[in-house]
């Protein structure tokens, strides 16, 4: 069965195509589909078109209605996408497993009564469409095949694929569409928004991530992490335990419910290594762990494990990095 159109639901991130969309477009190009297209909703959608095109979208279905920023996004987006799917009948719609991606895909599956696979890591399309997911802290790999119902919906964890521009990219055709907004969705409005800004590279993009967990003992010690991260031109990350405790903002959380990072070096300080944390960082090229408990599970995946006090080691690390930089 030949694969028809594959669509990528492209989110916007501060006026640009979100990296997840570019990753998915890159993967979609190699599935042998009849067409690879993107769908992009939001007031700044037009700004993302060129980049979506460079990554392989030949058509961008676009809706720049302000409602997508003024209302809770998931409902209107799912309704608008459902109308487009009914009209164009893609075989497969790919989503990044972000908050918005889940909000839209979950609703769309229910609306169209089609299957959806979450937490995807890879996808193959041959006689059937098969999605790979990982369970139990990525210790087991599961392959799940879609039946015949179309479209098939799948969500992929960020960083499952590396984004790359298409060598033969063309400037995409832009199809402007009307937003479809049911009354129930007008009842949920955005009344405030705040963006955490941190100096230095973004957590998802940083080459070095220095993360802290409950073993840092006190929220004020996060300052030490920040100093070390700055010296390394890296970013600070956190375990959920310390995010829940209010020591660090959620935007720094690494793991299953937080960000997935794939830095060159990941340094886990006072983090036990629960599987919900490690799924978000096990893709790092090198992992360093500092933990006072020699039995901590994090040591099972560390390239370098230091059994000791995280604060002591971090202070020495800071001082040594400072003296190297003169």
């Amino acid at each position, binding site marked *: 069965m030949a694969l028809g159109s594959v669509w990528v639901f492209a989110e916007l991130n501060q006026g640009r195509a979100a990296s997840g969309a570019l990753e998915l477009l890159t993967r979609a190009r190699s599935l042998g589909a009849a067409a690879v297209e993107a769908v992009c909703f939001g007031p700044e959608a037009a700004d993302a078109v060129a980049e979506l095109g460079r990554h392989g979208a030949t058509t961008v279905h676009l809706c720049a209605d302000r409602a997508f920023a003024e209302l809770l996004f998931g409902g209107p987006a799912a309704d608008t996408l459902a109308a487009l799917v009914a009209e164009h009948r893609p075989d497969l719609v790919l989503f990044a497993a972000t908050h918005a991606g889940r909000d839209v895909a979950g609703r769309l599956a*229910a609306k169209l009564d089609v299957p959806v696979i979450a937490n995807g890591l890879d996808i193959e399309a041959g006689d059937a469409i098969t999605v790979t997911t990982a369970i139990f802290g990525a*210790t*087991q790999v*599961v392959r*799940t095949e879609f039946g015949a119902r179309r479209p098939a919906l799948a969500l992929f964890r960020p960083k499952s694929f590396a984004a790359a521009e298409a060598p033969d990219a063309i400037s995409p055709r832009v199809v402007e569409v009307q937003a479809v907004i049911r009354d129930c969705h007008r009842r949920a409005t955005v009344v405030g928004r705040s963006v955490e800004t941190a100096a230095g590279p973004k957590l998802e993009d940083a080459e*070095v991530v220095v993360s802290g967990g409950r073993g840092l003992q006190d929220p004020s010690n996060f300052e030490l992490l920040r100093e070390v991260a700055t010296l390394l031109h890296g970013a600070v990350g956190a375990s959920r335990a310390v995010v829940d405790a209010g020591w660090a903002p959620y935007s720094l959380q690494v793991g299953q419910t937080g960000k997935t990072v794939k830095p060159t070096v990941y340094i886990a300080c006072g983090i036990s290594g629960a599987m919900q944390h490690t799924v978000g960082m096990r893709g790092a*090229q090198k992992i360093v762990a500092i933990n006072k408990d020699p039995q901590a599970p994090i040591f099972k995946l560390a390239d370098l494990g230091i059994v000791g006090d995280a604060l002591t080691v971090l202070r020495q690390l800071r001082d040594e990095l400072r003296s190297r930089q003169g």
Partner: protein
Amino acid sequence: MNVVVCVKLVPDPDSVGQLDATTHRLRRDLAEPVLDPGDEFGVEAGLRLVEAHGGEVRVVSMGPERALDAIRKALAMGAARGVLVTDDGLGGSDALTTAKVLAAAIGREPFDVVITATESTDGYTGIVPQALAELLGVPAVTFASGVVSDGTALTVTRQTESGSETILAGLPCVVSVTAGVNEPRYPSLRGIMGAKSKPMDRCTPVELGLEAVGGGAAAGQTVVSVTAADERRAGEVVTDDGDGAHRIVLLLAGARVI
């Protein structure tokens, strides 16, 4: 305020999970099943809403007979009554089937707010709340880290990848709460004793008017294989005797990041 909280029975998250080699389903016999710790935040959020605005908390679960234990814990915390949808055919249900069953059970009575966790500890698809909201025809305010109400609408702070968003949502709606949204209470002894006499309803999908739900292939997807992942190999573990930081510097230099 009529609040419904969805609660799930999951294998104790502190034990290591395993799939059955032939059925490809979670082996629930290996770990003691418990109320999903994530759902305790949902129960607490629901109790706080009714404590402030009156009404009651109803808990709904889909699962095996043992899921009554999860409901009972929520009743012991203070929920008023519970319903369990149970049927052998539901084993291995996907997210959409789960949402259909929960929606049918919830929609039998009027509701103002439906609360779930953002994701279950064992399945973690993180899409049941949204599918449920779609089937109920209401908004889904997901990833809530704060929920307050004036009795007619909810003001929800929700986590976003880059920060946070404040949503004003009219009722009815679905809210999925994150861990950390509140501090769940422990059931009191009186609560535990009282739970035994609270109404507990048990029904099948057919009784809810759902004829054709079922897990596995009927849901449009089939597990074709489960294999061990490539393990990351542990490297060197050393005790810090003053040179830990220096070893890290050498690794950083080797990786060419300094």
